[in-house]
Each structure stands twice: as structure tokens, then as C-alpha cells.
């Protein structure tokens, strides 16, 4: 099985203690985002599976959960795409190549891949949500022969904040991939699609009976996305979503990431939708 090619990450020696990684490259992306390419200072490889995240630590400032956004077959490069929103991410934005950051991980359940063999694949995402999904897209393309149609539905706010635009453009050029991009608002004369991601789900071509959907959006945007998938006849047991909670440890000790019966850091952040459908609608859980 192809899955065997993927190295299974070994639990870290002490999961609370970071390894240090050197920033090799820093790329400014759209919308206050930047991508850091990291190398381990001890030269040891770093293995992860698509959908997993790390706890990234900025010296003297703090630590935050960030999904890995690179290729899981490249064990010597660790890639993260980060949006500047608050204290830690702002400090991270100021780091430059040569600086060192702390990394704990990888943590969390990955996006399942083998479960979708034989199906059409639908990625539903928007703005920076594409970052946590990108390792999965890479891997699905790596194992392209196992899937039917592969569709990416991506939405951003405006025409200037399309994440990984070059990459999307490149994927669009592939004959074995449908890429639909929409923006929420655009200047007049814009030739692309304007509207919601849900609308892209309506027009995408796939076989609803045999489709697995991966949704990576904010929690409020996940609801309409799932609704659109249901409307097209994709059942909850073939929809995977990812969620966010405050995280202090990543290993099930600190309690911060709880959502009802689940610890998001170890039972998530990726969930098969039918397993959380009941509690997802409970307010402030």
C-alpha cells in the first residue's frame, strides 16, 4: 500500500520540550501571511502526515499551534504558513533567515487518505485554509491513480488575497485536476468568478455517491460549506473537517482544546463530520 511509503512519526522523547529549527527561507504571502521554510539544527529528519500541526515557539514570546503546510515526502524541510494575528504570530513575522525557532510535534490526527481510495476527491477551502490542506493535496496528487476526479474549490475575500496563487495557477494547468477559484468581492472588470465557495460546490463536477470531501475553513464558514456538500448529496461520513481550539500542549495534558468528549489536539484537529455532527451545533461547547 502507498501509505507504507509515508514514514510514521515516532512520539518525541519529551513532547513538551521543543527541538530547534533554523529558518532557511521566508516568503511573504498575501493577507498578512508568510511562509517559513525550516531545517532542524540537529539535522535529524522530521516526519509528519498531512493535517498534522506543530507547536511553534518564538524565543521569549510564546508558542502557538500551526499546521504543517509543506510536502510530507520531504523529510528535511519543514514548511509552515502563518497569518499574523496576535502576539506570537506577530513576533514570528519579524523573524528572518538564520533565526531559530522551537518546534514540538507533529501532533493531531491527519487527514485520512486510504479511506478515500476509489472516490472522487473534493477540497473545500478558503483564504489561509489552503495552507493546512496543501500537504494533503500534494499527497493526493502523488497517489493520483487511486482517485477519480479531483476538485479544488477555493474562495478568498478579494482578488489580492488568493493564497499560493502561483501554485493554484499551476494546478489549474493539470488536466487531471479541476480548480475553481472564487472571490467574495472584485473590482469591475474582474474576469474570474465572484461569490461564495458554496456556489463552487454547486457547479463542481463529481459523483456525489462516491466522493470524499475535505473541508478546511474557519468554524463559521465550515457550516455553510458542509451544508453545500449535503445539498449535493455527500453524506457526513464522507466529509472531513478541521477545527480550531486554544492549545497549550498538543498532547492531551493541558485540557484547553476540549470540545465536549474530544481533545482536539489528539482526537482532531481533523474530524469525520458524522462523529462530531451532534456536538458541532451546540453553542459555546
Amino acid at each position, binding site marked *: 500500500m502507498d501509505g507504507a511509503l509515508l514514514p510514521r512519526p515516532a512520539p518525541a522523547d519529551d513532547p*513538551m520540550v521543543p527541538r*530547534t529549527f533554523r529558518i532557511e527561507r521566508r516568503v511573504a504571502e498575501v493577507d498578512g501571511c508568510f511562509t517559513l521554510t525550516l531545517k532542524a*539544527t540537529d539535522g535529524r529528519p522530521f516526519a509528519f502526515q498531512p493535517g498534522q500541526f506543530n507547536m511553534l515557539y518564538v524565543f521569549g514570546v510564546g508558542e502557538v499551534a500551526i499546521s504543517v503546510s509543506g510536502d510530507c515526502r520531504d523529510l528535511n524541510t519543514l514548511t509552515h504558513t502563518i497569518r499574523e494575528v496576535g502576539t506570537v504570530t506577530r513576533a514570528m513575522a519579524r523573524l528572518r533567515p538564520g533565526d531559530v525557532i*522551537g518546534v514540538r510535534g507533529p501532533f493531531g490526527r491527519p487527514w485520512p487518505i486510504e479511506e478515500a481510495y476509489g472516490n472522487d476527491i473534493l477540497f473545500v477551502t478558503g483564504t489561509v485554509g489552503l495552507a493546512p490542506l496543501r500537504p494533503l493535496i500534494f499527497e493526493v496528487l502523488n497517489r493520483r491513480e487511486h482517485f477519480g476526479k479531483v476538485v479544488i474549490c477555493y474562495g478568498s475575500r478579494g482578488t489580492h488575497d488568493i493564497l499560493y496563487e502561483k501554485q493554484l495557477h499551476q494546478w489549474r494547468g493539470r488536466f487531471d485536476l479541476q480548480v475553481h477559484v472564487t472571490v467574495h468581492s472584485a473590482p469591475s472588470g474582474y474576469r474570474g468568478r465572484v461569490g461564495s465557495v458554496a456556489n463552487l460546490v454547486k457547479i463542481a463536477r463529481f459523483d456525489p455517491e462516491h466522493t470524499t470531501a475535505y473541508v478546511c475553513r474557519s468554524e463559521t464558514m465550515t457550516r455553510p460549506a458542509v451544508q453545500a456538500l449535503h445539498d449535493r448529496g455527500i453524506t457526513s461520513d464522507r466529509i472531513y473537517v478541521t477545527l480550531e481550539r486554544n492549545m497549550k500542549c498538543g498532547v492531551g495534558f493541558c485540557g*484547553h482544546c476540549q470540545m465536549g468528549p474530544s481533545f482536539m489536539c489528539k482526537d482532531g484537529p481533523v474530524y469525520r463530520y458524522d462523529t462530531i455532527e451532534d456536538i458541532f451545533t*451546540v453553542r*459555546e461547547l
Partner: protein
Amino acid sequence: MDSNDNSNGTRHTVRRLDRNGLDALTAALQADGRMVIGPRVRDGAIVYDPLDGAGDLPWGLIDEQDGGRYRLVPGPDNAAFAHVVGPQSWKKYLYPARQTLWRGRRDGPRFSVEVPAEPTPRTAFIGVRACELAAMAVQDRVFGVRAHSGQSVGQQQYTDTGYAARRAAAFIVAVNCSRAGGTCFCASMGTGPKAESGYDIVLTELSDGGESVFVAEGGSEAGWALLDRLDAVPAGDGDIRAAERVVDATRAHMGRAMVPGVNRLLAENLEHPQWDAVASRCLSCANCTMVCPTCFCTTVEDTTDLTGEHVERWRRWDSCFTVDFSYIHGGSIRQGGASRYRQWMTHKLSHWHDQFGTSGCTGCGRCITWCPVGIDITEEARAIHDDCHRTDDAGTGRGG
């Protein structure tokens, strides 16, 4: 655990200790290089502090406890363990409120990280109650200590090695409760009042008016071996029967009781109006989570020295009653007091089962006693239970 030469082989003798015998027990533990920790009075409450000897125990005192109320008063007997549990629990020692996770040093653009090598003190806990043994077993699961085989639900991938080391270094002298406190409900949680397992020695105090005697039984080889070293007389059949009667009487006099089926009851009533009702009284002060012997939540703190070259990362107790606890960029998940109280109560009584295959509540009653407004977890559960019963009877079942 300690290994002592036990030439008696397999037959063990239940012993009878008097007050001097109890002192000899603490002295023997100290001679083994252990810090002996047990109940003693400080600032009007019974806390768990180091003891010099059995004389430091709260002889003759009992604690009156009720919702939001705690008072030490003289008891009828000159007993050492007629009190029940106070505001502290053993997690104070097994899982300290503040711990250094690691230290870091900056070196140009780089930095290095080191874990402080702190030796684990050898301890002996004296006076551990059944509900507290249950709480330790619960935290063992939370922190991935695999002492309890056969665990299938919620097996942790990682082990908190600090906790595991402190747990292994503790010798446990349990006490069967000879009196139930006003807020105790261990019998309805199935955790007490009799210590069933998880101890090295268990004592039952017999104190009919006069001086106390203690029926002492081993729970591990180390425990039996220590008892053999004490030069104490064997307990008679009458003592052993009396000890059983003591526990039975305690079981019959529980201060409170949890409604049956509370796990499913709460899981099915996440949107019950009672959450708003309790929120109108709850101050979100977090006392209940601090005194709870199973609450394990922590946050991290980063400290930097004046040069900015040295940092420390600390882990300290935290509580789901704070708004910050669930903060994510854009706003906290649990904004309202109702959702925070619900988190606490459903976590303890319901979701803990999903996570760790056991209840997170042991029935110790601390959260009731130490709530400044006397909110009572058993009453809150009963309110939901009774409401569901009413609607069920009316044929409009809410699904209780």
C-alpha cells in the same frame, strides 16, 4: 516501591497499632528516607503538610462541611482521622501547581533548551482516603501512567514523566473513613468510603470513646513488610469485624448522593435551561476546579530575565472557568458563564467517561464545600434529572 526482606513469606498478619504504633509507622517511613506528609491544621483548615510524627495529626478534631461552609470543631473522640478531606488534595504533591517545563538560553540567532534535572523526593502520604485513591487512579489515566492495565478507552499516547516519577516515589498509607462529611457522596460514585486498592497500607481507626487504635493491613509487599517491622500485635477477630462495621456505618451516613445515570443524563442535556439557572449564581471564581482532586488543566507562562538571554517556560494550574481558557483569535469559545459551568460539570461527570473510561468525579465533595456561593454539583445534576423525569412522566420525553 520499597523492597524489604520479608522472611515471613506469604502469610501476612493484620496488625493493631495504638497511637505509639502510628508514631512508629511514621518514624519507620522517615527512616526509609521519606518525607512523611499528612493532614494537619493550618489557618483553620486541615491541609496536607509534612509531619514530624503522628503527634502532628489533627487529633480530636472534626470538620463540619456544607455548601460553602467549612469549620473545624472538637469531635466526640480523640481520633486522628475523624475529619474528612480539606481544601487540598494530593495533586499538590503529585502534580504541583507550578512546574518548570524547561529553560532556554539565547546564543546569537540561536537558542538552546535544557530540562532542569530535579530529583524526585521520596514521599509517604498518610491519611489518603478512598476518594483520593480514586482520584489518583483517574489522574494516572490522564497523565498516561499505565499502572492500570486493561484500559482501552482514552489511552494516552504520551506519559507525563514527572507525574509518573512522583507517583512511583510515593508510599501510600490509606485510611478508611470512620465518618462521612456533610458534602461527601463517594458511596454513590462507587469510590468509597472503603479503600479498595492503590495503597501500601490501609488503616481503620477504632475510637469508641477512648484512645484510638488502628487496624493496619498491607496492600502491597512493601506495605506488609513495613508492618512486620513495626513490632505491633496482631489484630484480633473482634478488631477486624469492628473495622468493617466502621466502614459500613460511614457508607450509611453519606452527606449527599449523585443521581444515577448522570453520564448520559448530562450528555443528552447540553442545552438544558438549568445551565443558565446555575450561571446566574456561579461567580466563575474557579475554586471548584482548584480544589478538585482530578482537575488537571494547565496553562503555560514564559518568563524572560532582564537581559532577555534566559527564558523559562512554566506550566501552572488553570481553570476552564476563566474566559481566557478557550480564547482563540477573534474571541473566546466559552463566553458565557453557563457554558463554562457546563464545561466543568459535563467534563467531570460525562465527557470524562468518553475521554478516559472513568468518571472524573470521585464524590469527595470539595467543590461543594469550597464554592463561595454553595453551588452543589449533586443538586445541579438532580435538578436536570428531576426535570427530565417530569417531562418523561408527562409523555413528552426529553430523552433522560
